[in-house]
């Protein structure tokens, strides 16, 4: 038994033992060697030791410098984005909007601040907080605010930094990160690790039948162990993870209590929060005081804080290019168009083609104006942008988190309106309807196949059933209902356009002349012709 222990000890510590023994031998030989020298030579040798150490260190430094520069792309690649606490200076007051998320985050902060009292009671600080939400909504900013408000060190790494081509490197980095965090926690009471893009390492593990798995498996396993493994570690290390992906993408083991205990959902800002964001970002630039921030906020539906920041920056650039002293509403509007729709580029087109596009877009606009229950038209244009020759830019006037049948049908009608308009005017249609048909067909298909909005009474998500398990009759029936939906919508569109044809023609003429019309101009046009939209906006 004793021999076995010795054998195991040797196997486990072979390298360390060999290195230690060699070092001791070298030291002894060095001492013997020096002692055997006569005093003059011994003194010379000893006197040269510092110089030799210095020269060795210098050679090593030169080697490392050349190695890193030539083979590893410089020293910047060594930086792993570890943000230290002293670099973070973000308070909750600096996080604009996200009121609900801030409330939950504040709870976390309170727990971290009162960890001593919590420990006395016998409780434990939470292990992990998961922030889920679309990109650009403020997850990283909120994590920084938590760290700053708690007054504890903050280490940050992106999930992609754990992943390397060599197996084991990711797990090693996780270990090092947690080791560093535990040291910081030991010194400061607690420490926060922020892992951005958590889905890179946190998505569900894959296990092949051969017994192996992806490299990220080992990284994730290490993360699981470090967060709540076999050993009960006394240091308070809190892991805050941020991800854009859905929770279901992440591994279940990561989401269980004891690891990511809390989940904070950070969504897009509502109208009030968008106003606050515009106020905040506009306060950083010289801005025309007469700007209606509320209108901007209404125009920026579904925009994230990052989008709003980008809009303000782009507006400032446009204002500078136009040689104006301050940012005005027009600049912001242009910035939004540029970001959402792309840069306008005028193609050389024949008059016929331009007219056709004008009628096509007018068709969309008329149906939008009269039949759409939720969306407003913000811009109509026959100037090509991106891949489109013309466009009608519309947005819901407020956030909707559910979509009802009427809205989907209205979207289908709007999509089909271009086709109908072309057909009514010219008797033939063009390839310009391809993307409209794709949208319309897709929406109709969704309604019938997934949302149970068909007319035959079929209920369920038929797209979830494998194709070979679905009977041909049901498929035929569902497809027929889809076509019926499309025809019904087409009929409605034809009816409306016939009724409002003079208005359409007039609008097409105006659009042909102006090429682009904004919300105000469109609204004025319809008012001048005594028309009102289907649903009045609030305050109208």
């Amino acid at each position, binding site marked *: 038994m004793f021999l076995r222990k010795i054998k195991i000890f040797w196997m486990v510590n072979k390298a360390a033992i060999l290195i230690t023994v060699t070092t001791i031998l070298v030291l002894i030989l060095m*001492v013997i060697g*020096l*002692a055997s020298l*006569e*005093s*003059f*030579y*011994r003194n*010379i040798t000893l006197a040269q030791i510092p110089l030799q150490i210095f020269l060795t260190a210098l050679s090593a430094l030169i080697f490392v410098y050349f190695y890193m520069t030539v083979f590893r792309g410089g020293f910047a690649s060594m930086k792993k984005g570890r943000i230290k606490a002293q670099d973070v200076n973000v308070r909750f007051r600096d996080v604009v909007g996200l009121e609900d998320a801030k409330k939950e985050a504040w709870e976390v902060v309170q727990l971290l601040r009162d960890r001593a009292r919590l420990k006395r009671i016998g409780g434990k600080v939470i292990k992990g907080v998961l922030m889920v939400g679309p990109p650009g909504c403020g997850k990283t900013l909120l994590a920084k605010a938590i760290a700053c408000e708690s007054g504890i060190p903050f280490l940050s790494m992106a999930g992609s930094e754990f992943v390397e081509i060599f197996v084991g490197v990711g797990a090693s980095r996780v270990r090092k990160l947690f080791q560093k965090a535990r040291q910081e926690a030991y010194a400061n009471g607690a420490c926060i690790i922020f892992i951005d893009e958590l889905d890179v390492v946190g998505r569900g593990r894959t296990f092949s039948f051969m017994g192996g798995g992806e490299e990220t498996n080992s990284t994730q396993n290490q993360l699981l162990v470090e967060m709540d493994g076999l050993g009960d570690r006394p240091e308070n290390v809190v892991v805050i993870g941020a991800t854009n992906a859905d929770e279901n993408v992440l591994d279940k083991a990561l989401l269980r209590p004891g690891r990511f205990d809390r989940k904070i959902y950070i969504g897009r800002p509502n109208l009030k929060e968008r106003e606050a964001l515009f106020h905040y970002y506009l306060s950083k630039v010289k801005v025309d005081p007469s700007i209606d921030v509320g209108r901007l906020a209404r125009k920026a539906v579904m925009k994230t804080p990052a989008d709003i920041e980008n809009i303000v920056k782009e507006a400032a650039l446009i204002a500078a290019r136009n040689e104006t002293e301050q940012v005005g509403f027009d600049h912001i509007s242009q910035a939004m168009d540029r970001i959402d729709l792309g840069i306008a580029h005028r193609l050389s087109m024949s008059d016929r083609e331009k007219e056709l596009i004008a009628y096509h877009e007018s068709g969309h606009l008329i149906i939008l104006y009269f039949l759409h229950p939720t969306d407003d038209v913000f811009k109509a244009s026959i100037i090509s942008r991106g891949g489109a020759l013309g466009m009608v830019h519309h947005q819901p006037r407020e956030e909707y988190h559910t979509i009802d049948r009427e809205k989907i049908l209205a979207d289908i009608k709007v999509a089909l309106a271009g086709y109908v308009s072309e057909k009514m005017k010219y008797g033939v249609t063009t390839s310009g309807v391809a993307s409209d048909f794709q949208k319309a067909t897709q929406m109709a298909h969704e309604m019938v196949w997934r949302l149970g909005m068909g007319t035959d009474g079929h209920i369920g998500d038929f797209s979830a059933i494998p194709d070979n398990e679905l009977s041909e009759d049901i498929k035929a029936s569902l497809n027929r209902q889809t076509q019926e939906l499309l025809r019904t919508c087409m009929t409605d569109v034809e009816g409306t356009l016939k009724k409002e044809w003079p208005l359409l023609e007039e609008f097409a003429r105006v659009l042909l002349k102006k090429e682009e019309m904004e919300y105000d101009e469109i609204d004025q046009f319809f008012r001048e012709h005594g028309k009102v939209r289907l649903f009045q906006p609030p305050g109208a």
Partner: protein
Amino acid sequence: MREPETLARALTAAAFIAILAGCGPSYPKKDLEGSIRELFRKELGAEVRTGLVGKTLYVSLDIDNMVSPDLDLPKDALKKLEDAMLSISRISLSTDAEIDYTVIEARDPVWGVETRIVRKMQDLKDLFYWRISKPDFDERLVLEMRKVPPGSALSGDDWRDLSLQEYLGRWMASRINMGARANPFLGVLLGIGEVEPDYDQERKTLSLTVSGAGYAAGVSTVTAVSGLLRESIVEQAALAEKKYGRFMPEGTPWAEAVDLKNPEGQVILRIDRADWTTPDRKNKETTK
């Protein structure tokens, strides 16, 4: 934490080095002569007579077969001589006794010839510290030869503490002697057999007594080559000034003049200090 472990290791290493550095000299002064005898016994297998006179260390030893019928210097003898020089150097460097000069007297007891090698210790240290080159160091050697009664015992009766001036005088004489032997044409032309130095402390004058066919009694001492001889002496004196002038106290010359004398003691040539210290001495015309 790793810092205490690292600190412990660093302190241990420093302690090691301190202990080693604090070790005393290998050849303490109080037992210097015994150490020399033991070392020579060990390295050369020879019994030596040794003594420290002031700051000059003397070692006398017998080396057999320094003279060979085939007119060559035997390798064994040469090696022994080299070992003796090395041994005395080792001792001189690794002792706490103050030693400025080392003198090895190696004698062939059968034939009665003795070679004397004198070194200045500072030259050896300058070589170790790379202040002078090896060829320069090789030049800084006093090599003297003399005849002694065959079979006589090693003695140290004429041992005395050397001064820098005496050393320089012997060094110049040694170089002139070696030059005359090395270049047979020069030797014949100058007619030099041997040059013996003597330094007068009071007059600060180095006297070089030259013996040889050109300087025998009755032979005219004013020869056409006296200019050449003068130049040779000036050259050696300038070299001595250059190499060793810095060891003299500030403003104190090692010699004011060099007198060349014949065996009767008459001054053949007098060379003043100005002759070897002026920069344009090389441009002076020689008497043809």
